């Protein structure tokens, strides 16, 4: 049997994309033991500059790394590539959360962990933007996507804009959010 620990990431771009989503999970009890706040802050700064932390840092996010590994195996890939990371965080992550809630996953604060599509409504300052999402308006960090302006479609994970997305991607994300019976009906992005 192939072990998920054997699954690597294809290249630096893949790692960077993965961290833009996963770094928001640094404070979970599981990750906290491996990712002290100072390491998280350093990694966040590096990723915002398009640079990577120490080699293997991404493996500290065990649940997300495992989820991507399993998806790569399902896609019969020998490594995790950008397509896998994108598919995992945009299209699979939310339904996994809903399934896990029934099995003991817990939210520890008032910010839920789903990935939402959204449109940038207002650039507040160098660090933050207001994003309209199906779950309502969110004040989000924009340090990973500093070049984007009002109207850009984005994927938001825990109040951080991770990446820019296309209209088709936003539509698919919203459809999946609304198709899950555990989710409340969400408003349209547009």
């Amino acid at each position: 049997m192939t072990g998920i620990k054997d699954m690597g990431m294809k290249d630096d771009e893949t790692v960077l994309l993965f961290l833009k989503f996963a770094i928001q999970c640094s404070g979970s009890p599981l990750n906290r033991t491996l990712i002290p706040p100072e390491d998280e802050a350093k990694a966040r700064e590096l990723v915002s500059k398009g640079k990577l932390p120490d080699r293997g840092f991404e493996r500290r996010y065990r649940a997300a790394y495992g989820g991507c590994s399993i998806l790569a195996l399902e896609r019969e890939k020998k490594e995790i590539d950008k397509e896998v990371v994108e598919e995992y965080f945009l299209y699979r992550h939310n339904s996994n959360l809903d399934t896990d809630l029934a099995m003991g996953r817990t939210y520890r604060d008032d910010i839920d962990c789903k990935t939402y599509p959204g449109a940038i409504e207002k650039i507040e300052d160098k660090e933050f933007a207001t994003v309209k999402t199906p779950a309502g308006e969110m004040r989000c960090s924009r340090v990973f996507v500093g070049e984007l302006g009002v109207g850009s479609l984005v994927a938001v994970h825990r109040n951080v804009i991770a990446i820019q997305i296309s209209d088709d991607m936003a539509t698919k994300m919203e459809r999946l959010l609304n198709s899950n019976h555990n989710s409340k009906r969400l408003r349209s992005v547009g």
Partner: protein
Amino acid sequence: MCQAPIGKVLSMDGDRITVECKGKRAGLKSFVTGLAIGDYVIFSSNIAVDKIEKEEALLILGDRK
């Protein structure tokens, strides 16, 4: 902040395992190598994704209470 569920392995049959999580039993598919009964795993969407050390698992589970 959310926390993926953690289960204690009760039985194993090929790539299928049964875990105990919060007093309930759950059947999972597992891609984790080197597992033994009594080990702790994190899982997502009914798939075990990684093994974690007992001390860490108990610390996290205790932290949830």
